[in-house]
């Protein structure tokens, strides 16, 4: 229970900075970020692709259960779908507060540009969110119908969420699972397309050689699977005491995550190899920033240390049979992927497009250097806190980790 308590404390304490960041955003300075026109995307865009990756990844892992019928991951199935929903909402919250005119978000549906990868991505995740909601409702419906019979506020919440459905029979459960399979099956290509679309969004920009590789959309999908799978291990540890209760599943998930991590490393290496020999000056400048710039510690300590070395130690050595080590390795991956995402966004943008651009004028908004402002950090932490609180509330109100006994049948 201690992990869960830490989770709640962090979440609730984080709501205050979130409130302050919102106040600043809407009532004082319209944009208190340290972004500029050389680095127009920063911490929040990195955080956005981080959360979107976690969402696509955990959804795809859940599809192993609901599409491909791999029963051994069943204990984490509903948790995975819920994780996919919460992380996607966190991603949308992050990017919504990052763009200049949030009140015009409907423009992306009304004035869609069919050749913009950003438009593809937005349409894909809009549909994906609906599919997720439908799938999750059918996954939870029977247990909510059971819970709706109980008194108290949990029963009240359940009665609202079931939208009038009270059938808790086994036949209705079987019917629900058929709908779940349909929704999950539609969701799989959607999740691949929308997260591949996020990668394409970066990859199509010939102006940014670090991103402009055909492997980019594919890497996004693989890294989503690695980080999403790792997050599920961490979530299971926090909410289900998975390292004790679902030991075999955690070990299996660890092997899965190891596979995706190795594939991700392979792709990263091939990309760097091709890039270095291609010797595009801007690519080399970006790569130099990654391995030797002022954020080099993110690459060496966070990405390689927390993201590769420690996970390999926990997942690829005999330690991999110990579910506690798997939890440590996977939690390390979840944290390290923030660094992975930052190292995609910032070094790709930082090299000036025209030599001398940043020296031509002396202006903090026209600079290759970017350090997130206090406001950006606060908002980022606040959004994480909001996500934790939503997740914790879901865990309280929804029977994510177990099926409720049918009280009517027992009586």
């Amino acid at each position, binding site marked *: 229970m201690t992990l869960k308590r830490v989770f709640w404390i962090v979440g609730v304490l984080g709501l205050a900075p979130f409130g302050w960041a919102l106040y600043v955003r809407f009532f004082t300075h*319209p944009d208190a970020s340290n972004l500029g026109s050389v680095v127009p995307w920063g911490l929040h865009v990195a955080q956005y692709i981080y959360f979107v990756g976690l969402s696509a990844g955990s959804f795809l892992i859940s599809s192993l259960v609901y599409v491909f019928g791999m029963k051994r991951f069943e204990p984490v199935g509903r948790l995975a779908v819920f994780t996919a929903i919460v992380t996607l909402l966190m991603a949308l919250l992050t990017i919504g507060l990052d763009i200049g005119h*949030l009140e015009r978000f409907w423009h992306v549906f009304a*004035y869609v540009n069919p050749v*913009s990868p*950003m438009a593809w991505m937005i349409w894909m995740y809009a549909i994906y969110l609906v599919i997720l909601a439908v799938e999750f409702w059918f996954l939870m419906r029977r247990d909510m119908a059971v819970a709706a019979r109980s008194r108290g506020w949990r029963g009240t919440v359940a009665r609202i969420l079931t939208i009038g459905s009270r059938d808790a029979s086994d036949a209705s459960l079987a019917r629900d699972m058929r709908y779940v399979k349909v929704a999950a099956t539609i969701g799989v290509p959607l999740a691949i397309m929308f997260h591949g679309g996020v990668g394409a969004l970066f990859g199509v920009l010939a102006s940014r050689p670090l991103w402009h590789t055909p492997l980019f959309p594919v890497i996004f999908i693989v890294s989503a699977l690695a980080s999403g799978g790792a997050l599920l291990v961490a979530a299971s540890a926090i909410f289900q005491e998975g390292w004790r209760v679902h030991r075999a599943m955690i070990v299996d998930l660890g092997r899965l995550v190891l596979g995706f991590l190795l594939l991700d490393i392979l792709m990263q290496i091939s990309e760097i190899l091709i890039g270095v020999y291609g010797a595009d000056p801007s690519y080399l400048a970006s790569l130099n920033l990654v391995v030797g710039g002022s954020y080099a510690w993110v690459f060496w300590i966070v990405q390689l240390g927390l993201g590769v070395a420690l996970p390999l130690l926990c997942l690829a050595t005999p330690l991999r049979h110990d579910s506690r080590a798997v939890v440590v390795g996977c939690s390390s991956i979840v944290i390290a992927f923030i660094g992975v995402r930052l190292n995609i966004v910032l070094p790709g943008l930082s090299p000036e497009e025209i030599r001398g651009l940043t020296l*031509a*004028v002396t*202006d903090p908004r026209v600079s290759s250097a970017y350090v997130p402002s206090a406001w950006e950090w606060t908002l980022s932490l606040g959004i994480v806190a909001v996500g934790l609180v939503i997740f914790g509330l879901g865990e309280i109100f929804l029977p994510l980790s177990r099926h409720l006994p049918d009280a009517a049948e027992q009586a």
Partner: protein
Amino acid sequence: MDLIQLTSRREFLKYAAVGAVAASVVAHEAVQAATLPERKHHWGMVIDTRRCVGCEACVVACKIENKTPPGVYYTIVTKEPLPGSPTGRPVFMTKPCFHCEEPPCVPVCPVNATYKRKTDGIVVVDYDRCIGCRYCVAACPYGARYADFGDDYELSPLAGETVSPEYKQYRPRVPGTSPIGNTRKCSFCLHLQDDQGEYDRDAGRWPACAKTCPGHAIHFGDLDDPESEASILLRERNAIRLKEERGTEPSVYYLF
């Protein structure tokens, strides 16, 4: 005869639907072709680096003309020496938006807020459409696009009261309203065009940077008009464009 008998209602509807879609596409294309205005001009610039003294009067003139806030520069002057230059002497280059014939910033916009004008090829931003995602800023290979983060020249007596004539929209600078939160860029001062879309150099309706340049380094004109000053310079001198390999076809040339 056989065909008609074999066709069920379902098939008929199917063919009818396909036919209707095809017809509407053809009709749409035809209407577009008939109603779209023709290309009248190809505005561009030929910038003579040998004439540029690096005074940056163009940068200042542009800021005053367009009332751009801090952090937004529709033109800048780079002062880098050529690679391997023995003297290290800087080459001054003023760099507005290149108004590319194949602008990479346009197709990426998720809401069609930025586009290339059909009549004269100027790449513009619809401030009321733009959602401020800054994708186009990342997509421009020339650093010609700037995000307006809402800063202001706080020491200026006019802070908060400036009205930009851009696009003939005369927007006052009010927090929370466009162009704050939008992407901004050089528009070749198109607010100085008359109703027919023509500039007039003698009347002073000419892009501010070109009008102000004391060394006459910036030659603005219609690249489609063989008798324009810009076209003549392009014929007579050796011009280059930046990052030709990107296939962007910039409308701004440099003479060395």
